[in-house]
């Protein structure tokens, strides 16, 4: 990462203006991801990780709005960019893969239609050239006999195959950045393994930067270079994946890691973090995690700032854990 990061998000704030009040889904999130790197964005449901992904592509729907911060794609701020500029970038420079492969492909359009239109939206090519590229992309993600499969409809594919098609569509225009929103959550573990392997290989080969949104720490451990842990719309801890997972400094990260069932603890009660995530409508003044935290003190009524810690890590906590505390 000697040169400019592919994507740098600074203090991003995305709020939803509902009738019940302002939902601060993303509330001061910062991270960056460089060429060929994979960033794992980890958090529970409702922690704002998907909204962060949509914000990057400018796909936040009403009543949501990016209200603050910067999204720098190769130095260009995407917050406030025109609709047409965002359309040009989407699918061409920045692609996205969605969570549920059963829902992402249009059921009434053939695969070739859906792939060719994605190419022709950005490049002036003939149908034959576009078809050729679509076929190559299908082959690249390991779909057998891509020529025949191009003529199929989505319902003729299994879930895993559909997700491969979605990934192939994301790869079509060789984007610099792919935002993958839990793309393997809905799949079998064996299929998940294959797809993770292929994604990792592709990123290394093509230099594509990737943001991998997930709640599954084991996926992040095997796949990502860096990780950012989100809680209630904020990044609470970030750093190199091995550092963070081996020695979490934020009590929430430690709790997440502790919640993963492991073979060494067979027969024991599974660990869980007590309590629930706070309502994003009504966040507490101070640290959002304080109510569930064993280490919380009076100091936690003041909001902690995201501070740099040793080893290129960042932490948002008044009482960071020392390495041995896990």
């Amino acid at each position: 990462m000697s040169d400019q990061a592919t994507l740098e998000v600074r203090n991003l704030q995305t709020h939803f203006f509902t009738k019940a009040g302002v939902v601060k889904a993303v509330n001061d999130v910062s991270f960056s991801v460089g060429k060929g790197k994979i960033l794992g964005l980890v958090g529970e449901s409702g922690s704002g990780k998907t909204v962060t992904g949509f914000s990057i592509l400018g796909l936040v729907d009403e009543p949501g709005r990016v209200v603050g911060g910067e999204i720098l794609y190769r130095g260009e701020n995407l917050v406030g960019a025109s609709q047409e500029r965002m359309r040009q970038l989407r699918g061409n420079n920045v692609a996205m893969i969605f969570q549920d492969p059963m829902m992402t492909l249009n059921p009434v359009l053939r695969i070739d239609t859906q792939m060719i239109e994605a190419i022709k939206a950005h490049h002036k090519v003939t149908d034959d050239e576009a078809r050729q590229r679509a076929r190559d992309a299908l082959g690249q993600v390991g779909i057998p006999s891509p020529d025949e499969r191009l003529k199929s409809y989505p319902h003729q594919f299994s879930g895993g195959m559909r997700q491969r098609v979605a990934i192939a569509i994301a790869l079509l225009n060789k984007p610099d950045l792919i935002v993958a929103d839990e793309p393997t959550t809905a799949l079998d573990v064996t299929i998940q393994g294959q797809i993770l392997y292929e994604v990792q290989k592709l990123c290394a080969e093509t230099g594509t930067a990737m943001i991998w949104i997930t709640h599954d720490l084991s996926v992040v451990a095997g796949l990502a270079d860096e990780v950012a842990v989100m809680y209630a719309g904020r990044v609470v801890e970030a750093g190199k994946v091995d550092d963070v997972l081996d020695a979490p400094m934020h009590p929430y990260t430690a709790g997440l890691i502790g919640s993963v069932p492991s073979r060494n603890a067979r027969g024991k009660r599974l660990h869980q973090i007590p309590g629930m995530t706070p309502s994003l409508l009504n966040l507490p003044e101070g640290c959002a995690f304080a109510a569930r935290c064993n280490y919380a003190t009076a100091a936690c009524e003041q909001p902690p700032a995201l501070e740099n810690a040793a080893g290129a890590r960042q932490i948002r906590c008044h009482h960071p854990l020392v390495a041995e505390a896990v």
Partner: protein
Amino acid sequence: MTVFVIRRLLQAALVMIIMSLLVFGGVFLVGDPVEMLVADDADQAERQAIIKSMGLDLPFYMQYLRFIGNALQGDMGNSFVFQEPAMELILERMPATFELAIAALLIAVVIGIPLGIYAGLKADSWMSKTIMTASILGFSVPTFWVGIMMILFFAVILGWLPSTGRGDTVELFGIPVSFLTLDGLQHLILPAVNLALFKLSMVIRLARAGTREVVHQDYIKFARAKGLSTGRIIGVHLFKNIMIPVVTVLGLEFGGLIAFSVVTETVFAWPGMGKLLIDSIGFLDRPVIVAYLLFVVGLFVFINLVVDVLYSVLDPRVRLQEVKS
């Protein structure tokens, strides 16, 4: 596919037989056509001769069997009033009704779908609310009243458009049509709009409901994530999905348009099948009534079949062989 069509045709035959029995029995019960047909000063002998010549002296089941026997040979009987084959009378008037129904359907689709999509995409705008309120009116105000009001405004007060008949017609493939002459087109506008209003309201509501459902689907967001233009997303990704329910309902309703053009044709004196039916009911002209109703039933069955086939073209997930019920 072939099996599917054959099965459908067999079902159709059964429906037609049941329908013929109901209609024949119903008209038999309603009244005696003889009173309408025999001159007031005819004596008993003349009366009996007419009754016998029409086969009205036979018991009900004999009359019915005789009718079925003839019908199977393609003879639906002669009109009591016109002394012409009933089917010929109907077919003569069919082009006028079809022209009216197709014009109404086109109006409903061409205006209704864009309005419905707009109302679905911008559900909270005042324009959408106006469209939806107007569609409720279209549903609930009776066709004949709207027809009369249209005549009052556009024909009587403003004098812009004619209110009765088909106007000039030209032959297209041997069928007389109105829409190719200026005069005919002017005659077509009011009745076609009148007949379209109900369907238009329905298309708007269907398109809006479909749009509201489809627009939140992941595949629309994914299409946006691919960087497609808004035009392509709405015109292809959304449109093809909302057309599935619209085509189904419209196909079925096309039969309805033809059957219920009765009211519009009567109001605008449009010389179609519907007007023939109303006149025939007035005269208790049983062969024409029965032939008309059987014709309409046949039409419904045929249209249903076409819709099923069309549906499988629009929605690749539907395979006709799987329809086993």
